[in-house]
């Protein structure tokens, strides 16, 4: 079983770190993983994306033509990646700022309004964890315990007190995601 995922949005939304935490969670569960960022002269507000593969088999190419799941967090990313989801795959998107929502009929379309939810709960910094929670609800490729271990591993110790807040964000994401 392989999960080939693209996560795309604006720089500063936590796209790369969300991918990193997902990859680490896979590592914690002894899965094969790869994390390949589209690196560049990135800046806050520019585009950012990362390809994450979580698989039971060794990963061949870290760069892909098509994806099982596309997580798109802005309009340009949705426009770029909607057509690259495999038939039967899924798009997860945040409707904040989306003018033209996805239209494909041969894939699952999920909406996770993480931006609004994060603002309401005053948890803007855990926006990406809300989105990750949504992903894990509809594609449970790793356990929440794995994600918590990954957070412990990737966050410096001085930030470990923030882990419960991240856990809460993941749970919130699982709660609010809906299939359209």
């Amino acid at each position, binding site marked *: 079983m392989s999960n080939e995922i693209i996560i795309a949005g604006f720089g500063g939304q936590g796209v790369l770190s969300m991918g990193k935490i997902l*990859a680490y969670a896979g590592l914690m569960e002894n899965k*094969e993983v*790869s*994390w*390949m960022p589209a690196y*560049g002269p990135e800046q806050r507000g520019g585009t950012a994306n990362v390809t994450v593969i979580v698989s039971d088999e060794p990963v061949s*190419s870290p*760069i892909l033509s098509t994806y099982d799941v596309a997580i798109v967090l802005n309009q340009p990313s949705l426009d770029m990646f909607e057509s690259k989801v495999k038939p039967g795959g899924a798009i997860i998107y945040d409707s904040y700022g989306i003018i033209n929502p996805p239209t494909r009929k041969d894939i699952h379309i999920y909406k996770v309004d993480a931006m609004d939810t994060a603002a309401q709960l005053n948890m803007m910094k855990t926006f990406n964890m809300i989105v990750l929670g949504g992903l894990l609800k509809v594609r449970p490729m790793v356990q929440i315990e794995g994600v918590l271990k990954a957070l412990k591993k990737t966050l410096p110790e001085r930030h470990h007190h923030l882990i419960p807040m991240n856990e809460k964000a993941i749970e919130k994401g699982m709660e609010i995601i809906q299939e359209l």
Partner: protein
Amino acid sequence: MAEQEVTLMKGNEAIAHAAIRCGADGYFGYPITPQSEVLETLAEQKPWETTGMMVVQAESELASINMVYGGAAAGKKVFTSSSSPGISLMQEGISYIAAGELPALIVNVMRGGPGLGTIQPSQSDYFQACKGGGHGDYHLIVLAPASVQEMADFVDLGWTLAFKHKNPCMILADGVIGQMMEKVVLPPFKPRRTDEEIEAECGSWATTGRKHKHNKNNIVTTLELRSEEMEVVNQRLQAKYRMLEETEVRYEAYNCEGADYLITAFGSAARIAKKAIEVAAQEGIKVGLLRPITLWPFPTKIIHELSKNVKGILSVEFNAGQMVEDVRMAAAPGVPVEHFGRLGGIIPSPDEVIEALKKKIIK
């Protein structure tokens, strides 16, 4: 950290960690995307406080490679890393290190050229790494890692080969392998060699000082104004290169048994080719992959043998067609050999590789 721990890191980070663990004496480098994490990781790890390894951010690539030249001449385990334009700046020093027959490790995490080009991944320095780069008749041993694990493993391998053959070794990676994160098991810790150990291993040639009282002073120089003598030096180098071609070729053959077609690719292009081969197999097209691990010495013989059993060969490279020249020379007469690549930092997708295979080879 337990020595067998599986961890997740970038290829560039793996190089830095592996070097510290291999008992490196010194790193000299200058930052450039997409390899800056090598120096950053070394700075973060502060090996000068633990193993005593020296880490210097030099004032330029020219300074870096000449510091490596000096360190290597003293028998030390030293290395530098850069990306394409920076490696171009180092070519004079690299030629001197090869001529001086010194063991040094040079890491090139390639980006798209020519010129300052782009910071995106590329494999367009194959010619530079394998066919010269600097002036004169010399060769580097060139290792092409295709995973983060190989980035870590080839540091020790590179130094082992460099010291064994008194020849500089290059790890020729690209932006994909440098920037991606994968699982890696780092090599076990080896202590740095003591002065006595360096004297025992390298005393016959290294400039270790007069304290060891050997009969002659070792001098490292590459200047020889007498042509007769210089020809002898060249003949000695050429004899070494012929020996390396016989003894140090490394490659990975994947899915080659019963394959109708062959793809040749190195580094991250080989990873993309593997995915393409998996997808092609679902369509009933049998494709094998020959991945050179040493780009120099090149796996000519195995490609020749494999070519006899296939209908055609596609060389997939992130360049305009460089390794394909060596594949053509290796292939049996009459076997079609074509190239497919993208340029300027564009990475072809597995689908594009299959499409190119169909268009150029299967027809």
